[in-house]
């Protein structure tokens, strides 16, 4: 179970941050607004704070008496706290800065001539992003995905705060490792660490194979 939970959390956090950060980064690079400056600072926040603090903040916000919590309670008395969705949310907040900065670096590396060429040809900003920027930035984008996914696997401070450690419901590999180590159960901890590393290496391998595929496609068409 912890393995499945971890995978759910890491994968959905990666996908969601990707889909959120990509348009934001793209938009902010294209126009240098002052608003962007504020947003970037905000985005750094979860990085400079200990994850536990981020978790505590989210707990208060989405708790029964918090603003977010009361709002969500309007929908069939829904609550994020002590659920897997809560863990996903916490992880998203923690990994978002990494994803954002990595994507920004990737987008910045795309030759502006290509963007101009697409624009002149009548491409909308979104089409330019999809057809020109992403394919040319893919190496950097993939590294951003890898970093985010792996950090999502390892994160436990914030999600433990928001989702708690409920066996069979919100336990993840990272929290299980943490608890078994603290409880002196080194063998379980080692086993679970091994699992996490394996997942990480699989992700790396996947990316490696994907890269090779793309390179081969380019070369031996």
């Amino acid at each position, binding site marked *: 179970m912890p393995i499945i939970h971890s995978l759910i959390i890491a994968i959905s956090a990666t996908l969601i941050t990707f889909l959120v950060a990509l348009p934001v980064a793209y938009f902010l690079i294209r126009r240098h607004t002052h608003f962007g400056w504020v947003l970037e600072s905000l985005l750094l926040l979860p990085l400079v704070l200990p994850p536990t603090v981020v978790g505590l903040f989210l707990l208060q916000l989405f708790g029964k008496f918090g603003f977010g919590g009361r709002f969500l309670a309007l929908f069939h008395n829904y609550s994020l706290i002590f659920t897997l969705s809560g863990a996903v949310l916490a992880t998203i907040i923690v990994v978002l800065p990494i994803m954002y900065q990595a994507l920004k670096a990737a987008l910045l590396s795309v030759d502006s001539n290509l963007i101009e060429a697409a624009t*002149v040809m009548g491409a909308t900003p979104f089409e330019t992003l999809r*057809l020109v920027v992403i*394919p040319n930035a893919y190496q950097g984008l993939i590294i951003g995905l890898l970093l985010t996914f792996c950090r999502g696997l390892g994160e436990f401070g914030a999600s433990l705060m928001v989702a708690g450690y409920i066996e069979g419901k919100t336990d993840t590999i990272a929290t299980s490792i943490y608890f078994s180590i603290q409880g002196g159960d080194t063998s379980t901890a080692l086993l679970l660490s091994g699992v996490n590393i394996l997942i990480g290496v699989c992700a790396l391998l996947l990316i490696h194979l994907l890269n090779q595929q793309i390179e081969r496609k380019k070369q031996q*068409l």
Partner: protein
Amino acid sequence: MTLAIAIHKQMNARQLNFTATLTEQIYGLMGPSGVGKTTLLRIIAGLTTAETGRITCQEQVWFDAAQKINLPPKTRRLGFMFQDLALFPHLTAQANIEFYRRLKAQPRQVDTEFEQQLITELELEAYLTRPVTQLSGGQRQRVALCRALISRPQLLLLDEPFTGLDDQLRQRAIDLTKNVLAKTPGTQVIIVSHRRDEITAFTDNILALER
């Protein structure tokens, strides 16, 4: 099309003043290296903003510094062959040429027969499935020319389109371009070249930029 623009700062503190009314279909643009030919095309395309002036095209105001009008490039219905080509390095020759088809917002009709003819004339068949990064200089040049010609734009801007081709290919490319223009009378074209013969093959309307 009427043009009256001035630019200074974005030209390394050189000065470019240019005024013209273009009524014919084909114009050649000549001038010594660094005089501002590329800059002028970029201004027309809306990629560089002139400091003062006004550009209109078929009753439509594209640019007016005084009124702060500046139509975005994508609505100007252009074909632009860049001096440094700006081919998409992640795509094959064919995908570069057919890039227009993937744009949904501003579809342009590209008929397959016409495309096939361009490709054959420019001797590109054998390379269509290659990524453009694996093409020779001259092959890339032809892909870029093909990409610009195929778009059937309102205004076609060709920046040194025939450079780097051997005499035989150059002649073929010139003839082809002439053909395309003859078939699409609605397309106005400005051709930049440093060779007078390349221009005179098309037209006697020469716009000269001088220092």
